[in-house]
């Protein structure tokens, strides 16, 4: 498995990582405003970073076992770039999500808007990770990555949805 080493973003990487850290807090804040509870502000970043931290080793192990893993440092850099991409994308989606949530009387609109923003940013982060790891080079690489992506998104999505429904109900 070869790895692309291009300049990752048109913004400094440190800023991108800051966006990745603050973005989920902001999304949690939108939900917290609707629910009148502070839990989502803490839970949103915990879900994002917790699930990625918990499942990232699985991707490395699976690709290594399949004979396609890059060096550990390169894989770590790829995850950093993907998280940065997630943060930048989320930064562009926070304002529309906040507007949609605040201008509606329906709590479900808030859940759908915040979930949509997180899902969209996560999708772009995963696409960026796939490119950084060059998973498209082999069929096995694609299979491993798709399986890992579905599992990771499924876990994070379920945790987020359960949290959102619980706090607004």
């Amino acid at each position, binding site marked *: 498995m070869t790895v692309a080493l291009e300049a990752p973003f048109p913004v400094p990487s440190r800023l991108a990582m800051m966006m990745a850290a603050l973005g989920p807090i902001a999304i949690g804040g939108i939900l917290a405003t609707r629910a009148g509870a502070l839990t989502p502000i803490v839970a949103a970043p915990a879900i994002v970073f917790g699930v990625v931290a918990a499942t990232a080793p699985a991707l490395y192990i699976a690709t290594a076992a399949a004979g396609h893993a890059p060096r550990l440092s390169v894989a770590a850099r790829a995850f950093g770039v993907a998280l940065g991409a997630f943060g930048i*994308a989320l*930064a562009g989606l926070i304002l*529309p999500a906040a*507007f949609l949530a605040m*201008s*509606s009387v329906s709590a479900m609109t808030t859940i759908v808007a915040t979930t949509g923003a997180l899902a*969209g940013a996560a999708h*772009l982060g995963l696409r960026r990770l796939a490119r950084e790891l060059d998973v498209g080079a082999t069929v096995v690489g694609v299979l491993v990555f798709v399986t890992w992506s579905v599992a990771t998104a499924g876990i994070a999505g379920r945790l987020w949805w359960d949290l959102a429904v619980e706090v607004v109900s």
Partner: protein
Amino acid sequence: MNAAIDARIDARIDATFEPSAQPALGVIDLLLRDRAAILARIRAGTGVPALLRAMIGTIAVTMTIVGAALGSYRGGIQIAYAAIKLPLVLLGTAALSAPALSAIGAALGRRSRLAADITLVMAALAFGSLLLVACTPLIMLGREMDLEYHRMILATVVMFSIAGVAALRVIWRAVALEAAPGWRTAIAGMCAVFALVGGQLSWALRPYLVRPRAPEAPFVRAVEGSLFDSISDELDSARGIYTRDSAPLPDVRQ
């Protein structure tokens, strides 16, 4: 060949952006006749603030005219209400949605520049607004012919759809020229955000087109239901399927 075209575009831009030229009218003329020149200017990043001001002004003026035309279907205070609200909807939606184009593109590796992307979106919307203002005589014709309310709404939707597609084409053409990674995703993402935000904002600030016999013309209506429920009801009403006994009538004074 390309160099010759670039030289022609540069000469045209230089002439348009001369201090002696009338900036706003010159830019509008360029937008209508030679959008490649406008897109080249945005891509080069020169004269962007002046361009942005001209585009915002164009949208504000044209949508005020379109809003007034729509408001004239009922007449009275609704002319002023719609003329105020329609530019707010378009400019507000653009302000909320344009950063998504930059952010999604940047996440995928596009060399995004927020100011240039906002100007691009405003230029595209200004072009769409100009097409809409060109449709104003059709709106006035519908009013003069006493076109039935639901048909008038559908006619308005058709006009706005045509303008929207034309505006999208401008953005598509500009971003496609960059051939950056993820440009299609960036456009698709921005369109999705624009549709959702625009739908919600226009819904929140409705009504624009009010029945002539409506007793009152509120500046905005109370928040109720959802946009998608309303679209479904409107299609049913246009087919003669009504969910209520009658439309509101003026109070009968003794």
